[in-house]
């Protein structure tokens, strides 16, 4: 019972540290462009350099960090054009994912999708951008997982990259969330009906709507 707090159980240290840092980036604790100082982080986390370096390497592979010789590691940054480019890929991947779930053996297992939508609705009153963002991400990640297609699942880091790293909760607004929840519900219904074509169309249109909003707000040219 006591002493359990020090046992790490089945989880390898590098996996744990990678997850800690990934979450700090997703939650904007480390802002885009922030420099990560190894010595400081080792002391803070109470670990040696070796696992930290390995964690950095993995996060770089995921596209969340960039290391430059002599300059150390920085959290990725992106301008609006980069964000739009990432969303353009997402539009295709999300569309495909929704189709696969609608047509696949899992289309009956939509309970977890409707739960994510319920949780999004709860974040509206009172409006809580952070909570909404989490359940928005969960909805899209669940669709990706339900495809059972590992290549589609391999793209799922794009979801949090676009929805959280590059879109801090401060810029989310309730009106867009209300619109998005309506779209999520329509996607869910198409999946439940087993209508792959409609699910794909709606999921794609959902992301394209986000791109349109971005362009309107920032006047991005698009890639």
């Amino acid at each position, binding site marked *: 019972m006591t002493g*359990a*707090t020090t046992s790490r*159980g089945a989880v*390898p240290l590098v996996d744990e540290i990678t997850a800690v840092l990934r979450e700090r980036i997703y*939650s904007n604790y480390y802002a885009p462009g922030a420099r990560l100082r190894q010595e400081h982080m080792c002391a803070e986390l109470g670990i040696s350099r070796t696992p930290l370096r390995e964690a950095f390497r993995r996060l770089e592979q995921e596209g969340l960090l960039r290391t430059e010789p002599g300059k150390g590691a920085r959290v990725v940054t992106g301008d609006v054009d980069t964000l739009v480019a990432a969303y353009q890929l997402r539009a295709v991947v999300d569309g495909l994912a929704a189709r696969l779930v609608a047509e696949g053996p899992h289309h009956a297992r939509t*309970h977890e999708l409707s*739960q994510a939508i319920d949780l999004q609705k709860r974040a509206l009153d009172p409006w809580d951008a*952070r909570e909404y963002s989490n359940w928005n991400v969960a909805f899209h990640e669940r669709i990706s997982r339900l495809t059972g297609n590992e290549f589609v699942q391999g793209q799922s880091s794009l979801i949090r990259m676009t929805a959280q790293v590059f879109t801090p909760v401060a810029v989310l607004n309730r009106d867009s969330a209300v619109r998005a929840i309506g779209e999520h519900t329509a996607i869910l219904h198409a999946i439940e009906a087993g209508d792959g074509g409609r699910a794909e169309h709606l999921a794609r249109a959902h992301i394209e709507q986000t791109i349109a909003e971005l362009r309107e707000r920032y006047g991005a040219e698009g890639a």
Partner: protein
Amino acid sequence: MAESSQSVRVYQLIADQIEQMVIAGELKPGDHLPSERELVERFGVSRPTIREALRVLESNHLVKSRLGDRRGPQILPPSPHSLQKSLARLTAASSLSLEALLEFRMIIDSTAAHLAAKNRTKQQLVELERANARMKVSSDLSPKAFSAADVEFHNLIAKASGNPLLELAGEAVRSSVLTLIEQRIDDASNSQAQMQTSVLHHNDVLEAIRRHDGQRAARLTRESLYWYYLEYLEPDARANLRSLADEIR
């Protein structure tokens, strides 16, 4: 017959007396009791009576004797063990429902989270972050590893609350809930989504604790419990738990 009931009282009296010394702080966790021979002399009773008294203390988790240790048994720190045992007995006899346990847990855990947000140290925050990361990683490994990481996360919060009673009661009630649930863990893919929901809620609780926002940490803790156990509850019980979760919004 008369004689045996007499000796029952004697060893119980001795056990009570030693327990009183612990309660009064004359004996502290880590201290050793005198050896059996010294206890025989001090209390002026037979060796079997002393041994019986020590057995009572040991089975109540007040002391622990180690084989080969020439010193007397060691006083143990307070543990949730006896509380846990009572709860376990009550749940096994079906006189305590999951609903009752969860309602109680909502109070304990959310209060602990509230206080942890106020009182946690930087070091405790990092420990919480790491436990949270282990929850995340282990949700891909197995429900069992996940449960272990989850329990650890809550124990750390209880510790950070600075209230030992919350720590003890929390540990006891959480393990009772787990015992009830373990018999019902269903298909793996469904529990995957359940674990993910839980990870996200815990994440938010952690963020609130980072920002010293006690009310938010408490509310999200209740929210997290509600969603995690929803599927296990009957509609009436759900409504009760929902109402408790919404108490402060």
